């Protein structure tokens, strides 16, 4: 979606039905409607009587949290990706896919696990005080604790994006750096990192947007962000208008962020001069360096997955769950995840293909992802309300509820799919598109025959991210789902609200069980996506 070229092949009028523009428009409407809904709702009535002091506190907490999570995920994710792509050390192959696994763990599940594990009255700290005579000065239910938990949950976004970027980098640039006397670290900072900047921006943007939109984890950790404002205005003051008004500054901030990010990228297209793709040069680490790399990856995997999931399993296994309810919800979750992923990726692809023509639409579509989930739920009620009013029977039918839910996922998660799809399509050079168009292919058939096959690794990544996000999705599912229909995330959240953590562990673990194979499979696809392989 780079826009640095004066003559853009896709802007040439095509023959026949303008399929791509129509699909792009449709996708933009899907993603835009709830945002319009938010603005309408915000203007619909007076706000809630919440003190300005509290509003500032919420906003500052949100900002700090976004900053901390952005910084931690950027550093940790990039280092991990660089290590597994460029170096050879023990268990490197394992880590190259396993480090993506925390993506399978819902942030709320990590929050339950860490809050419980390090609870002041939990077995660990009770034992430490009694047995060792000292206590950990640790508070997971704090800004720092929340930043830690969310970074554990979201660093794989950066890791995956950076791994794909490092894998597809040209050997020639690295060789040139080497010939000119650069060390490997130099090559990282001066060549690989700048070249991978779009991927870094995309990964960090996802992590930050997930942080801002988080619904379950922060509520559980008692960290009061703008989402708290949304919920407080809604639940205590009964004001949906006041609730979504909290989302407006966040929407503005997200829009600004996206604009800055796009602008930073504009005109900087890094077309590879070389068409020769060779294996990346690998450095074999030995001794302390090998141990260091191994330990870094191990600790990352441990805090992101093994420790919290192990603790959840430990607390849950002592409790017998309601199996029939879990299995039914598991089937619902799996079906929704797959359909939601396919629909969302198709819409995001349509959006990305037409992005040259409608850059504004693309930016707007990304905003839903950064909007607090609770506010987005209110926004989604506006299009839903239209359906319910125009088709009075629809409010009660199962299929209407299901379709609305899929729609809600597409609207909420469009940006998650858009970033990787966009990055993948940007690998298609204008020259390739020109070649196809000059052979008489339409815009749509060029997309079908040239752009999509080249971007296929990215489409898989997009599908993975959306699928897993749907499994974890809460606010839209809570408010829009049809009768007698629960997902695993809903059950987990209900148990957690009811303060039954052992019971909440089961659905959380099932979400993991469903998404881990997907993460592994698609993580492998990313590894195999190096051009020429």
């Amino acid at each position: 979606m780079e826009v640095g070229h004066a003559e853009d092949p896709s802007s040439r009028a095509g023959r026949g039905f303008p399929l791509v523009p129509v699909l792009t428009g449709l996708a933009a409407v899907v993603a835009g409607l709830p945002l319009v809904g938010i603005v309408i709702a915000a203007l619909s009535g007076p706000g809630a009587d919440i003190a300005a002091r509290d509003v500032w506190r919420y906003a500052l907490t949100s900002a700090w949290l976004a900053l901390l999570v952005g910084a931690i995920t950027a550093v940790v994710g990039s280092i991990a990706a660089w290590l597994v792509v460029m170096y050879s050390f023990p268990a490197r192959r394992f880590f190259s896919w396993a480090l993506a696994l925390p993506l399978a763990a819902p942030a709320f599940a990590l929050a339950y696990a860490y809050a419980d594990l390090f609870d002041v009255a939990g077995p660990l700290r009770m034992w430490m005080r009694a047995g060792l005579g000292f206590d950990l000065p640790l508070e997971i239910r704090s800004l720092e604790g929340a930043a830690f938990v969310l970074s554990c949950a979201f660093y794989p976004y950066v890791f995956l994006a950076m791994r794909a970027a490092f894998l597809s980098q040209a050997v020639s640039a690295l060789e040139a750096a080497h010939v000119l006397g650069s060390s490997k670290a130099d090559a990282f900072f001066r060549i690989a990192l700048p070249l991978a900047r779009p991927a870094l921006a995309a990964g960090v943007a996802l992590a930050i947007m997930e942080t801002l939109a988080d619904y379950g984890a922060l509520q559980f950790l008692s960290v009061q962000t703008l989402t708290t404002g949304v919920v407080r205005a809604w639940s205590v003051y009964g004001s949906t208008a006041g609730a979504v008004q909290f989302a407006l500054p966040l929407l503005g901030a997200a829009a600004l962020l996206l604009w800055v990010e796009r602008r930073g990228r504009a005109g900087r297209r890094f077309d590879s001069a070389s068409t020769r793709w060779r294996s990346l040069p690998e450095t074999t680490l030995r001794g302390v360096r090998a141990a260091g790399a191994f330990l870094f990856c191990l600790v990352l995997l441990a805090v992101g997955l093994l420790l919290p999931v192990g603790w959840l399993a430990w607390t849950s296994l002592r409790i017998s769950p309601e199996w029939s309810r879990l299995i039914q919800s598991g089937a619902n979750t799996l079906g929704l995840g797959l359909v939601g992923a396919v629909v969302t990726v198709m819409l995001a692809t349509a959006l990305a293909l037409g992005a040259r023509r409608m850059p504004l639409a693309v930016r707007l579509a990304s905003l839903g992802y950064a909007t607090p989930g609770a506010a987005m739920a209110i926004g989604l009620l506006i299009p839903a309300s239209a359906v319910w009013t125009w088709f009075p029977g629809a409010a009660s039918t199962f299929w209407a509820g299901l379709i609305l839910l899929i729609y809600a996922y597409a609207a909420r998660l469009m940006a998650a799919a858009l970033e990787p799809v966009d990055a993948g399509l940007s690998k298609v050079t204008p020259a390739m598109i020109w070649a196809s168009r000059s052979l008489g292919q339409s815009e749509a058939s060029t997309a079908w025959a040239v752009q999509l096959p080249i971007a296929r690794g990215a489409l898989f990544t997009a599908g993975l991210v959306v699928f897993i996000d749907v499994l974890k999705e809460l606010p839209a599912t809570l408010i829009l789902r049809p009768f007698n229909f629960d997902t695993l995330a809903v059950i987990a959240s209900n148990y957690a609200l009811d303060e039954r953590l052992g019971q909440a562990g089961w659905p959380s673990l099932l979400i993991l069980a469903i998404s881990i194979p997907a993460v592994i499979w698609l993580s492998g696809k990313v590894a195999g996506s190096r051009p020429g392989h």
Partner: protein
Amino acid sequence: MRAGMIMAASAMLALVACGEAADRPAAPATDRDGGVVNLYTARHYDSDLALYDQFTAATGIQINRIEGNADQLIARMTSEGAASPADVFVAADAGALWRAQQADLLQTIQSQTLDTRIPANLRDPDGKWFGFMRRARVVAYDSAKVQPTEIDTYEKLASPRFAGKLCVRSADSIYNLSLTGALIEAWGPQKAGEWVKGVVANMARPPQGGDRDQIRAVGAGVCEVALTNSYYYLRMASGEDAGDREITQRVALGFPSLDGQGAHVNISGGGVTANAPNRDNAIKLLEFFASSAAQEHAARYNNEFPASTDVTPPPPVDAYAAFAAHPMAVSAFARRQPEAQSMMSDAGWK
């Protein structure tokens, strides 16, 4: 790959279609044989599912349910408007019922059964909602450090005796809001405001966690007293977690009194929605919730106190059931939640 994706999509649509169609009536929410009631409920206890099955077994009426946060359900009903399939709205806090009433989402019900079974202070004077179960907002205290007489009024929690020794959850907790609302109703804003400031001054740590976390913090020695709903303590004392049971050996439950008239009591209750398509069944469901059997079931499995005076709760609830409950009308504090929130926020109760 493209073909693969399309195939996967169609396969999954088919999977969802089969899976759903197999175990679901085609149009679950419509009243086909007079045998359906649609329930929007903010209660989400597993034990309630067994209660719904009992209702279906007794009446032949199928229950379709959506569980969710009370205010999300209110927003959904508002958006659905006249087309809403909801027949019954249930919430676990009087404030949420009051907000539903304010949004014109509930209708007046005349039911001899409900009026006789539910005490007047636990239902809306206009018959728009009824409380079926009671939860007392009381005190968990360290029995080695605190005498029962030191926590026998709510005032004492805000006294310097407990400086740095009180654990509370956030001001966003509806149960704290309802308690503060009740204090405003009983004492007026001046004295209630002083109480809130006293509580903030006594906090052992910033408000965090749920009620169970407050009880556990007392057990861990973080604080000596904590505000909690009664059923969390009872559940810990009789639950599956050995650590929790051990904690309740050292932490006791005390019932402070408001103006000598008893402890603050909130309700879990419901009403019939304004546009209920299955109004008769909705009333039957409410009357079922008010029955002795249903109240006893909820007391047994969720450790709440029954609303009706003639229901004898099973253990472990029975040991506490004789507590003095303040006779204040729950509708009186329900409407004071926004005022309570502002007061708590001003005092620095996060």
